[in-house]
């Protein structure tokens, strides 16, 4: 142990200028994320600049970490036969332990302490802070071990960068080219260009994280293995082969999708205390049915395809608790003729429901608006309740020829609908500077309110949120509600955010400090909104969290296409279907 500490101490002595710089960057980044929203005025440009600066700072940190790790590993090089330590009574195990100990104590630990301090400073609860520690440690360790792997099998920083480029850019590129070639060779060009969507197995909300976690774990194990192999055996060729195999394995894991889907495990059901699936039923409101004609795009080249008819309609799940919303995430439908002949099948999927991560997005889609409408029942969303009816789901799509041949026939429509169930937490704030929201580790405060611009209003909010990997499928939307008029405006966010860990906040979210710039604009084709509209308005924050999925069947008898109302012609499926994708299977 003494020798290990002795080696680590001398490494510290050698690398202290770099470590000083590292500590400086860590502190600067923490100060920027933790204090910049308080220190700097509400100026859009400045906040964007700070956000951009924080991003560059993160890149600089990674570069510096690469330099530190390369210096540390390559000064006692394991490649070749000229290193000083090879002729000294230093065992390989001790050398490796010394290096790891140095990295943990001198690089990861200060960073961990600063980040924990930042979480506490930002108001994250001690419990959430404690839960974050393993995640912070693992992410830092993963970065360090990956860099160590590249440094261990090369002799200089330049070569390590080259190896990193080849392993993490070149190999994935080759991988995807090979996959493309494989698809073309075995499945053929027609399948490759097909727009068909296969029926997906709904998975519980946190499960998509398994792709990130799985890939990260595989990379961690592989890089640890390569480092161990190189230090203990000094067989560089083997280590390099191990590295390439490992990266390909990680690519394979990341391409496979969710573990639940891969292993075929059944997703856990919904908590019946929140929603008992046996007591809810799905139905299509006949009066909401509408037909729109469009041209199916060839997704690969963006070219317009054949003329297509899209059947839209409102699907409702009822009865639902007041704080629960259901989104028709996947509709697997078929049309049957009175003779019992199966006419066509169709699958449509919601972009929103299958979206990987939606926390913090400033964009509010039609599907999101439909879910919000379920939450604020009886209140009109001025931005979305136009004549087009954007909240209607795509129930079916078929070719013009099918419509021409069977439009007068009373068909049967049956579908299995997979609903994504969300729970909404609503917090109301007075529309004035200083008003705020505080719940656990999440908090928000209004920095300024400007309603002087002819009905438009801009609200600046400082929002702090904390998430671990398992909690990522949440979305926060701000609405301005005038309860007396029973109207609401959706806030479109064009602000900037600072996050820890930077650049990884999508895959591994933790702390996100956002400077929201919420823009509330009345619709162009609607009635004008005067300044008095804001007098009785309050700002509400709706945080939606995915709970799980339930599947229900719906059935429509005597569906005569000719009798269904036609909506606006030539609308694209996205406009008409609220952001869903569709596919057609003709019989």
């Amino acid at each position, binding site marked *: 142990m*003494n*020798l290990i500490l*002795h080696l680590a101490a*001398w490494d510290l*002595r*050698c690398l202290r200028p770099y470590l000083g710089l590292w500590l400086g960057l860590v502190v600067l980044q923490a100060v920027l994320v933790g204090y910049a929203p308080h220190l700097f005025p509400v100026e859009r440009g400045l906040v964007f600049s700070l956000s951009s600066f924080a991003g560059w700072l993160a890149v600089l940190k990674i570069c510096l970490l690469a330099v530190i790790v390369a210096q540390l590993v390559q*000064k006692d*090089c394991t490649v070749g*036969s*000229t*290193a*000083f330590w*090879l*002729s*000294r*009574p*230093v*065992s390989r195990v001790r050398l490796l332990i010394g290096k790891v100990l140095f990295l943990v104590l001198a690089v990861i630990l200060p960073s961990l302490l600063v980040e924990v301090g930042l979480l506490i400073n930002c108001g994250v609860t001690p419990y959430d802070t404690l839960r974050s520690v393993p995640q912070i440690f693992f992410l830092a360790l993963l970065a360090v071990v990956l860099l160590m792997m590249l440094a261990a099998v090369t002799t200089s920083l330049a070569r390590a960068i080259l190896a990193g480029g080849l392993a993490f850019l070149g190999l994935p590129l080759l991988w995807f080219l090979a996959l493309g070639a494989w698809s073309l060779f075995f499945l053929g060009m027609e399948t490759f260009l097909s727009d068909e969507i296969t029926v997906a197995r709904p998975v519980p909300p946190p499960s998509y994280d398994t792709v990130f976690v799985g890939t990260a774990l595989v990379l961690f194990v592989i890089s640890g293995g390569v480092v161990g192999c190189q230090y203990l055996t000094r067989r560089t060729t083997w280590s390099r082969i191990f590295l390439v195999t490992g990266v390909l394995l990680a690519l394979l894991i990341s391409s496979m999708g969710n573990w639940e889907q891969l292993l075929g495990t059944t997703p856990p059901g919904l908590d019946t205390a929140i929603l008992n699936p046996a007591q809810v039923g799905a139905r299509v409101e006949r009066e909401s049915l509408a037909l729109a004609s469009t041209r199916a795009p060839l997704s690969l080249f963006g070219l317009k395809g054949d003329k297509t008819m899209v059947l839209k309609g409102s699907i409702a799940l009822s009865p639902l608790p007041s704080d629960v919303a259901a989104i028709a995430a996947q509709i697997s439908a078929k049309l049957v003729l009175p003779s019992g002949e199966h006419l066509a099948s169709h699958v449509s999927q919601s972009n929103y429901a299958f979206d990987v991560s939606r926390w913090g997005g400033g964009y509010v889609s039609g599907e999101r608006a439909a879910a919000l409408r379920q939450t604020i029942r009886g209140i009109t969303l001025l931005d979305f309740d136009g004549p087009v009816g954007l909240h209607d789901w795509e129930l079916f799509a078929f070719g013009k020829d099918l419509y021409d041949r069977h439009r007068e026939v009373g068909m049967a429509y049956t579908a299995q609908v997979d609903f994504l169930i969300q729970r909404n937490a609503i917090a109301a704030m007075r529309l004035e500077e200083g008003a705020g929201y505080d719940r656990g580790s999440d908090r928000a405060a209004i920095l300024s309110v400007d309603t002087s611009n002819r009905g438009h209003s801009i609200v600046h909010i400082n929002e702090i949120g904390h998430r671990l990997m398992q909690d990522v499928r949440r979305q926060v939307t701000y609405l301005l509600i005038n309860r007396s008029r029973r109207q609401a405006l959706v806030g479109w966010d064009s602000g900037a955010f600072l996050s820890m860990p930077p650049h990884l906040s999508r895959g591994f979210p933790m702390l996100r400090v956002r400077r929201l710039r919420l823009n509330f604009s009345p619709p162009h084709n609607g009635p004008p909104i005067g300044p008095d509209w804001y007098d009785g308005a309050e700002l509400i924050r709706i945080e939606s969290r995915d709970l799980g999925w339930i599947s229900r069947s719906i059935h429509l008898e005597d569906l005569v296409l000719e009798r269904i109302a036609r909506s606006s012609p030539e609308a694209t499926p996205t406009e008409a279907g609220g952001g869903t994708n569709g596919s057609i299977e003709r019989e």
Partner: protein
Amino acid sequence: MNAIIETHELTRRFGKTTAVRNLSLQVPEGSVFAFLGPNGAGKTTVIKMLMNMIRPTSGRARMLGTDSLRLGPAQLARIGYVSENQQMLEWMTVQQLIDFCRPMYPTWDPDLCRQLSRQFELPLNRKIKTFSRGMKVKASLLSSLSYRPELVILDEPFTGLDPLVRDEFIRGLLELSGRSQWTILVASHDIDEVERLADWVGVIDKGERRLAEPTASLQARFRQCEATLEPGREIPETLPDSWLLAERAGQVVRFVDCRYREEGGEQTIRNSLPGIKDLTVRPMSLKAIFLALARTFRLYG
């Protein structure tokens, strides 16, 4: 003979090139073994295999009674290694190098370290990266001898040293080896430097061992001979195998006898070459023997 280094059929290939081929060698304990060979002969490769810096393709080696592949800290603490190829911790000062190395060796001798640093005239507080090549070698020696290793391995230690430093260095080594019973293995392509040191000589060429024996025995059996024949005498077409590099010039034959014996050696030559009028037999320096051998191997393989 108690061998401190032993190799058996040691072979190392780099791709299609065989750097060392079936080398069997023994270095006796307490000897100063000059490991000689031209540039590219495979000396450094052998030493690196001995030190477990590279793995042999086949064969095995033992150092201090341990298989070289199992050479660990316990054995390395008894070996001092200095090589022209070895990376130095150049960011350190000499004092820092001493402080860094000292805790690794239980046998570190501070007095010897002080003495060596004085002898080598090393400025303790200067960074090694500012040193000349010779100074770096001295710093390396300082860090490799201060713990009184049982075995010192020097791989081309004289490269880049000016004659004065070389002389000091050799004198220092002689002094050290005389004081303690250290075994020293010196690999060099230049015989001049090791001639004064070595009591054993091993010669390697193209990865193969050519000879390995005590210097005294080598010098005893090698003689530079010049024979002048009586007029009218013909020089035979075939000469004894032990006569190397034989040259004929009129009635004069010059050659190197590699099996000369002090007693009866001249008579043996006269018997092999009848009609000798005048015979001169001179002892050879190690350098002359080495050159004769090198030329012979080059000419005849």
